[in-house]
């Protein structure tokens, strides 16, 4: 979660989606009454993560649970398109997702992921959403910039985080701003 020392190597089971997964699918609008800055509502948001997905993707969250068994999402292009709602990366982070590996991101979703530090938004140029399956054992290694599918044995290069790296490494926009002296250290 935001504020902890982020691990640069994340291993776990992956959940696979495809292109243009919009924010309404990540967190349906009816749940937006939940306020992410309130701890109990933050947890509830997690329980509704990906609730808007069509059923053919499989079950992301077991009914009645608020944490998913998946720690990694594998996606196609333009992940997170649609609304600017920060509830989207928050719901994913609250549900237990630590990193998304997508072919590309929509801009506001990417910004929100970076600003909140809820989950890493990482890019991979290869079309891995065609090669990975729900439940595959995966390691996302942000030291070596590779993603490994242990179930198939294949490894793919990740794109370096680029301009967002200093903000992500600091732990979000507030931490970065304090580090660079933009705002005072004490709240």
């Amino acid at each position, binding site marked *: 979660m935001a504020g902890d020392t982020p691990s640069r190597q994340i291993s776990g089971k992956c959940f696979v989606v495809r292109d*243009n997964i*919009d924010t*309404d*699918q990540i967190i*349906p*609008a*009816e749940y*937006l*009454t*939940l*306020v*992410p*800055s*309130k701890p109990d509502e933050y947890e509830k948001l997690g329980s509704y993560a990906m609730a*808007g997905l*069509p059923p053919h993707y499989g079950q992301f969250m077991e009914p009645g649970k608020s944490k998913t068994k998946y720690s990694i999402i594998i996606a196609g*292009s*333009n992940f997170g*398109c*649609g*609304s*600017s*709602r*920060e*509830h989207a*990366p928050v719901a994913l982070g609250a549900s237990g997702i630590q990193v998304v590996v997508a072919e*590309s991101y*929509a*801009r*506001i979703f990417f*910004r*929100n992921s970076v*600003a*909140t530090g809820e989950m890493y938004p990482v890019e991979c140029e290869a079309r891995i959403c065609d090669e990975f399956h729900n439940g595959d054992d995966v390691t996302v290694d942000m030291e070596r910039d590779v993603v490994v599918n242990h179930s198939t044995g294949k490894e793919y290069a990740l794109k370096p985080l680029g*301009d967002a790296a200093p*903000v992500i490494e600091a732990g*979000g*926009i*507030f931490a*970065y*701003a304090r580090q660079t002296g*933009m*705002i005072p250290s004490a*709240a």
Partner: protein
Amino acid sequence: MEGAMLHSSYFSVNARPMSRRSSTISAVMAPPQQQRAPASTGAVKHAMTLTEKILARASEKTKLVPGENVWVNADVLMTHDVCGPGTIGIFKKEFGANAKVWDREKIVIIPDHYIFTADERANRNVDILRDFSKEQSIKYFYDITDRSDFRANPDYKGVCHVALAQEGHCRPGEVLFGTDSHTCTAGAFGQFATGIGNTDAGFIMGTGKILLKVPGTLRFVLDGEMPSYLLAKDLILQIIGEITVSGATYKSMEFVGTAVERMTMEDRMTLCNMAIEAGGKNGVVPADEVTYSYLKGKTEKEFESVYSDAGATFIQEYRIDVSKLEPVVAKPHSPDKRVLARDCKDVKIDRVYIGSCTGGKTEDFVAAAKLLNKAGQKVKVPTFLVPATQKVWVDLYAMPLPEADGKTCAQIFEEAGCDTPASPSCAACLGGPKDTYARMNEPKVCVSTTNRNFPGRMGHKEAQIYLASPYTAAASALTGFVSDCRDFL
């Protein structure tokens, strides 16, 4: 797909190839043309686009290039009932429970999303906005306390993006951030306006600044005489269908040309509103007399318009002859699934929805009313009307239409058998709590003047939404099928 259309004469593209980000570019490439170098005589000025200039001024730099990350000063920060509470939570957590906002006159708080509902959390969220506004002496808080009658709330406006324009918060050359993706609507006023999340907004609330990456600009030159059956919505759906939902990711969309110059402010707002649907960072229309005329009496603040330099570099330029276009819709389930309206005549529909920041402005309703009045028939399916703001609602009842023998929109809608215009808010555009007016709770088919049609957008995951202009929506209401408005105009 629409591949056949790409080679026709009305839509041509000049420039060097698009960036490698998008692998599904559908625009045809003409041979790359040399960009004109900036003037070598006179002042050596770095040529910039409109967006680059605004951001340069706002970051106190003399020049900027796309890709640079800069700290930008905000002129206005807007938030609403869905994202405001979260933003406030972050502001207090990061700056302290007793912290004060950076400028109590530069924050505009507009409850609009989940207002007319019994949902307790939704109602509580408006209370949170009120408490904060009182505590901080926020100058612009458009409150609602009596949900049973919106007219009993003199401060209440309605849909934030339309309210921002109507209340004079949009000004050329300025920088506006809002916790809503359709904040890009304000670019119609020749300003930089974009949507952000709670954390960024919380940061701005305390500091008045945010870190931004400067976007390159896609230029859309819309020329030619606008046919009588086309509206701005058709143009933007045309463009999104051309460049796809990620075609403008991280880019600015600049709309120019004779057709744009002849557009009203509301038309320009419709264009810029859907820039986000193409992934755009912002949409912008250069300010002119139309803009200044609209702003008269609405704002006392001084502003300074900026324009793209003659030698500015654009990532790509698209030239569109609007006179050759036809009414279009976006099929389920993506705003870029563009199809000619006349090719969908066998699609049976269950309802029509006219509303939202995209298609719920006064002129949107006037267009629908004009068509219905001309047709002189009754609608065949439930037709829901949601004026974006109180002002729009008043226009529906008070404005006589010269082209309809002085009848008001409300009279025409009643004669045609439409539902009574509802309380102004975002309503069903994004589904909302289950008791939201006109929410799609069943897997039915709707033609809508709204902005997104992803699965579940208006409620039910399997509901089908065809995005359309107000003319197309009205025509479809009359037939009970997706229709071409030329059948009635």
